[in-house]
């Protein structure tokens, strides 16, 4: 055992890591918030809201993180997929009309799933186009990559404005997911439960793909050392386009979910969410799905608690959280890439 020779802080750190380490941070945050808020029912409502928000941000962040991890590509245009997903989701919901707003829960859900599916499929296709046309020519060149993706973001936002106009668009919410249920004195919006469950589902699916399939093995290896995977005979660029499409699809899915949550959307939605998404990716550590989930939950909880306690500090609090975590761990909480 090396423990007896290790210094005290290192021993404490080892002990913390053994019991889940940084995974307890959200719990710690929740406990502190409970002490500050005082009323358990308010706290519970905020916690659930935070978890739901975190899950939606997770959808948007996980793809970005993987894309970056695998190819060192930071897609500043990622938020365009979020925006597009939101508008396509909203449009499909509006088209389906009575399906969504009528009294039949099965049709309600089918309508919502159709809308989410439409957004997701669009995200995947747009991701394919984006990777081929915009990003592929500037691999390996970070500066031009950032510039090109910023340019593409401008164009994409303008296209959204061109198609849907600048006025906010209302999003019909499926009747079955409207309202709240009261459980042990705590009122919970049904849509939030839905968002949370969908996020969990996506996380579990991603986890299984990454850890139980050969494709996932290749992706994890590629995130660590792309060159070596190629030297073993695998085409990482083909892998990457798949990951890029999946990441864009998830961003669009997150956008559609967020549209339903907000009820009213504008073309600025993507850019507004992107700040949180970046913070999540930085906090979580680049290239790591667990990291993205952890970061997203922290950010979601923080945003909701602080919005209740000190409304004006909501976004700034997440920024401070990011600064604090960067001081403590410069590569984020759970980075996938070992340096």
């Amino acid at each position, binding site marked *: 055992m090396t423990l007896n020779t290790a210094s005290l802080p290192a021993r404490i750190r080892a002990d913390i890591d053994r019991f889940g380490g940084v995974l307890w941070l959200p719990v710690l945050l929740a406990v502190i918030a409970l002490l500050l808020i005082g009323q358990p029912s308010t706290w519970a409502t905020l916690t659930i809201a935070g978890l739901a928000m975190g899950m939606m941000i997770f959808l948007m962040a996980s793809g970005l993180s993987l894309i*970056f991890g695998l190819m*060192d590509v*930071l897609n*500043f245009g990622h938020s365009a997929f979020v925006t597009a997903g939101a508008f396509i989701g909203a449009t499909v919901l509006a088209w389906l009309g009575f399906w969504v707003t009528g009294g039949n829960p099965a049709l309600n859900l089918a309508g919502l799933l159709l809308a989410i599916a439409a957004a997701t499929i669009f995200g995947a296709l747009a991701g394919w186009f984006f990777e081929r046309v*915009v990003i592929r*020519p*500037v691999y390996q*060149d*970070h*500066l*031009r990559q*950032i*510039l*090109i993706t*910023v*340019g*593409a*973001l*401008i*164009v994409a*936002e*303008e*296209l959204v*404005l*061109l198609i849907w106009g*600048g006025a906010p668009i209302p999003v019909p919410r499926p009747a079955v997911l409207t309202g709240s249920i009261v459980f042990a004195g705590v009122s919970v919006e049904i849509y939030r439960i839905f968002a949370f469950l969908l996020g969990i589902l996506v996380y579990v699916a991603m986890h299984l793909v990454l850890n139980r399939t050969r494709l996932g093995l290749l992706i994890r290896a590629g995130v660590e050392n792309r060159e070596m995977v190629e030297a073993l005979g695998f085409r990482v660029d083909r892998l990457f386009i798949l990951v890029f499409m999946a990441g864009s699809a998830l961003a669009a899915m997150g956008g559609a979910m967020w549209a339903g949550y907000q009820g009213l959307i504008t073309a600025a939605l993507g*850019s507004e969410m992107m*700040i949180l998404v*970046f*913070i999540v*990716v*930085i906090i979580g550590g*680049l290239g790591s799905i667990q990291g993205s989930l952890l970061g997203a939950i922290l950010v979601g909880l923080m945003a909701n608690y602080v919005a209740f306690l000190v409304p*004006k500090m909501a*976004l*700034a609090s997440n*920024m401070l959280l*990011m*600064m604090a975590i*960067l*001081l403590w761990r*410069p*590569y984020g909480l759970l980075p996938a890439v070992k340096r």
Partner: protein
Amino acid sequence: MTMAHQHAAAAKTQRPSLTKTQNWPGRLVVYGAVALIGLALAFAPFLFPDVRSQEVAARICVFIVLVASYDLLIGYTGIVSFAHTMFFGLGAYGTAMALKTMGPGFEAILLGGGAGVVAALLLALLIGLLSLRVKAIFFAMVTLSAASVMMVLASQLSDFTGGEDGITYSIPKLFSPATELLTDADGKALRVFGVALNGKLALYYFVFLSALALFLTMTRIVASPLGSVLKAIRENEMRAEAIGYRVVFYRTTIFCIAAIMAASAGILRAVWLKYTGPEVVLSFDIMIDILLMVVIGGMGTMLGAVIGVALMTLAQYYLKDLMALGAEATANLPVVPDLLNPERWLLWLGLGFILLVYFFPSGIAGTLMGKGGSK
């Protein structure tokens, strides 16, 4: 290894790429264009006396400083920061808040602007030390987040910043249009070539000369040993580290210098406009403008900043008029008028920008002079 050796080594790696690709006709065009823009700005009040042109000229002056300071980062050092408007805003808000509370005086500009510059410096130091150690892309994200938070703070701490509405204030009496610098026999402001020598003229030259001084300072920095170290780092970070440069130290230094320059530009903007709000100094649109200007002009050239700013600003003010005409002329066609709607001007700019980055990554000045830009 001594510093002298290091600089020599840095200079050695630079020389081949410069001598091989020097391009005299192109350089002449660039110098000519910059000289033309410089002369036009120097005599703007006499050449273009109408109010709108004065606005345009002053905006160009301020943005040349802002964009050139951004070029110090992106062009000379390869750092991509999205926090440049944050520093710009700190300078502007510092000046604005001081002018509002202390009244219109030069000491308010000095104190408030100074406070803004110091705040920018400290923030740059913090961000730099915290995140310039890690990958370029990481830094871009950190600065983007920081800038957004600053924007939210400015609009929410309305007791100090005036929120979304911003702050309106008066500036020193010397700069008021009613002030007569020289009077003629009738006791009115003396006219030279039909232009009254009043406070407005003094204000313009205050902005112009300050901007000129700041710009020249930056060209000196670029030509100094620090400039060549930065270029060496940009070209090959690992090699620079191996030669013994403390990469983080140099990067943080230039990030701080750029922040100070941007904040100073913010002071000029605040004094000229007599108004400071999130839209005019902090918004992400301005950050995009800066980015477009520096890339269009040519990264890593300094002169490119002048060309990029002049071109983009003129286009912003005058191209939109042209698009409106086009939209009117094609009003009967489908889709086309929507595409030509002046509101959609960013669509075309964005497309042009993407093509530029693909085909002429070193921008106008860089392409003509055959240098600058990274890769």
